[in-house]
């Protein structure tokens, strides 16, 4: 094996991929050959580093230099300066916004300081398309030791003692789930991986699959051994072509190395994995719906019991876990349950991956120990609110979760605290909103998502959410009444109590939590007919300031409905009755004379 002096790691996650990281990798490879450095320098495409805001990311080993926002044109300079002359390219280093200092080592960056990477341990370190790099980082060691010990119940006990809970949303204890499935005897059982990440604004699972697919394969094999399944199925979104591509490569490699297939490690245990594709239905994240979808049916949920552990895929006992849950399993077995359970809070152990997005400085993928506060995540890791604006709310849990306000910023994040605060952990989307976000519109955004994605099987979800969306529409158009707010609340409660599946039951959460935390904003829309954030178009009022207006007539000429009147060089006026609030005048005015009220 070649003994390289330098390694150039290039992020190949979706975000960086979209910013030409493939071209960057190609350029590096070309330059390295041109300069005859191929025996000293290795170019590696890796999974997501997490710091998507500053992508594309290039990391140099062994000195850990972290280059941000690299372009294909920068490659030559990096090789010339960093590798040949041993000088860092200052302009590409991360600039700390507070101290205005360049930081070269990611360990010293605010974004990484508070993070602890367990599920993402290999993302950004290894080449996901090379099984040997995974093996070099203790890959498949856990599977080997589990098979050697040949004590499935003992392995399940380890997971139970570690306190691992499902990372897909509900937080059900993983060890217990495996045990329930193990107890049901059957000639065939199935170990299923839920990679149907449907929450808008969440990309944790895809990053794991793109950056470290073998960890999921290894954990599924361990799970298969524990519950007594010889078949594994990954249900993955068809919208994730890169993740599918890498997973396929990984499965082929694992088969080639005898880590999937018959008689793994020379034991009696045989296990293989097949892929099944989702087709864009949010409800398929619910396990019974997912199973129906894998069977080639419409992805509609069915009533539980029977649970999948009793009657799942093709009516056989099946166990469904999410990608991130699986990614934790091999480490727990390698490092022991004592280590894992020492991280986190009393009832939520380990770490959680979040996709941090929205009006925040450092958008990206982060992993923090349970018990980290929202403030630490938003201000220290996330670098605070974009453009110096004021924090308004943070949304967790996707369409099933809620919006949390400033008063929850110091709440330690764990399953139970988030539920007590009126939201939930969910799969890990975390969207930060500033003062310009209208909470009524945000609630409507999530509700419209549910209306579109509702499978239609039960009427509370299908009809109830539609009616709620109509009421919210009425409110954002300035036609709402106080009775509407009451009706909204009642409907939400009925849906919560009567919908068939977990997704339906939690669908009113965004409305309920914004009503709880931003009641005044709802009232402002209904009573004062004002949108405090200035987002709702129908409630906006464009006004010309007569002192600033020069009478240039630019706005009057641009107005599509002729609602602006005035004589040349005299202040103009907008006829509010005729105005359609299109905002054209606001854009045309060169003197900032038009304001929105």
């Amino acid at each position, binding site marked *: 094996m070649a003994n390289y002096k330098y390694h150039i790691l290039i992020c190949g996650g979706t*975000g960086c991929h979209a910013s030409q990281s493939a071209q960057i990798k190609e350029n590096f490879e070309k330059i390295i050959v041109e300069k005859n450095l191929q025996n000293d320098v290795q170019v590696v495409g890796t999974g997501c580093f997490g710091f*998507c805001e500053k992508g594309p990311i290039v990391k140099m080993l062994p000195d850990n230099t972290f280059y941000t926002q690299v372009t294909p044109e920068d490659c030559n300079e990096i090789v010339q300066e960093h590798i040949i002359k041993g000088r860092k390219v200052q302009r590409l280093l991360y600039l700390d916004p507070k101290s205005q200092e360049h930081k070269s080592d990611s360990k010293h960056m605010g974004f990484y300081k508070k993070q602890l990477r367990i599920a993402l341990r290999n993302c950004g370190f290894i080449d996901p398309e090379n099984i040997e790099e995974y093996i070099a980082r203790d890959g498949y060691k856990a599977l080997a030791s589990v098979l050697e010990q040949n004590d499935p119940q003992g392995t399940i006990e380890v997971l139970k003692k570690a306190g691992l809970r499902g990372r897909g949303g509900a937080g059900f204890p993983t060890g217990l789930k495996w045990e329930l499935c193990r107890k049901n005897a059957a000639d065939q059982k199935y170990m299923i991986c839920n990679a149907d990440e449907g929450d808008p604004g969440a*990309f944790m699972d895809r990053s794991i699959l793109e950056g470290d697919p073998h960890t999921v394969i290894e954990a599924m094999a361990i799970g298969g051994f524990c519950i007594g399944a010889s078949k594994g199925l990954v249900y993955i979104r068809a919208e994730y072509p890169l993740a599918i591509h890498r997973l396929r490569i990984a499965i082929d490699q694992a088969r080639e190395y005898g880590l999937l297939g018959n008689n793994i490690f020379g034991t009696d245990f045989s296990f293989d994995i097949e892929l099944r594709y989702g087709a864009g239905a949010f409800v398929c994240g619910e396990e019974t719906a997912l199973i129906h979808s894998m069977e080639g049916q419409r992805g509609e949920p069915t009533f539980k019991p029977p649970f999948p552990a009793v009657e799942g895929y093709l009516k056989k006992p099946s166990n469904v876990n999410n990608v991130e849950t699986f990614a934790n399993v091999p480490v727990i077995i390698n490092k022991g349950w004592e280590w894992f359970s020492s991280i986190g809070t009393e009832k939520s152990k380990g770490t959680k991956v979040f996709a941090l997005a929205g009006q925040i400085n450092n*958008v990206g993928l982060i992993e923090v120990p349970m018990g980290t506060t929202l403030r630490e995540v938003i201000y220290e890791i996330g670098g605070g609110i974009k453009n110096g604006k004021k924090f308004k709310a943070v949304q967790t849990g996707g369409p099933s979760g809620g919006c949390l306000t400033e008063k929850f910023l110091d709440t330690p994040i764990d399953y139970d605290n988030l539920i007590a605060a009126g939201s939930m952990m969910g799969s890990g989307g975390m969207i930060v909103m500033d003062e310009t976000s209208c909470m009524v519109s945000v609630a409507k955004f*999530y509700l419209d*998502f549910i209306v579109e994605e509702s499978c239609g099987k039960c009427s509370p979800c299908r009809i109830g959410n539609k009616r709620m969306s109509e009421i919210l529409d009425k409110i954002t158009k300035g036609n709402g009444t106080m009775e509407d707010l009451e009706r909204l609340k009642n409907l939400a409660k009925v849906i919560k109590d009567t919908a068939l599946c977990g997704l339906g039951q939690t669908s009113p959460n965004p409305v309920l939590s914004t009503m709880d935390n931003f009641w005044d904003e709802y009232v402002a829309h209904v009573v004062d007919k004002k949108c405090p954030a200035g987002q709702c178009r129908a409630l906006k009022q464009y006004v010309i300031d007569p002192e600033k207006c020069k009478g240039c007539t630019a706005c009057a000429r641009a107005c599509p409905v002729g609602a602006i009147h005035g004589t040349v060089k005299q202040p103009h006026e907008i006829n509010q009755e005729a105005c359609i609030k299109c905002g054209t005048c606001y854009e045309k005015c060169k003197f900032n004379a038009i304001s929105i009220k």
Partner: protein
Amino acid sequence: MDKIIIKMRKDVSDKIIAICKNFNNDPVELINVLHQTQDFLGYLPAEAQELIAEQLHIPTAKVYGVVSFYSFFTMTPKGKYPISVCLGTACYVRGAEKVLDAFKKELNLEVGQTTPDGLFSLTCLRCVGACGLAPVAMVGDKVYGRLTPDKVKGIVDEYRNME
């Protein structure tokens, strides 16, 4: 029962029959069959659904039920340059709706439609996973990030000029 009249070209129907066979004509594989058929044809016309139903020995209604359930499957042909605007939460709070409006205006299209010349179609999708670049849109496989409404015309022109 009337025999289903299949209006497809023979090479097209042969290919679909081959796809079904590849999955052992197993109804459990219906979604995989539909994926491959859509990859091949670009959409799932009624004739293709009838043929698949016949091959897998299931009612056409069941095939149609599945096609209409999943948003990934479409019964109208997409444009040569399919444009999808991400309406995930991260993009939404960074102004994706305005970008979508700009595309609608520029192409004179509603979401789900294709231009009469067959060049562009417009759809929305939920999260490409490139939230760091929000708001984003995709044209084919290419991702355009950090969009603003005034960048839209330039993107569309890029493809118009290729014609």
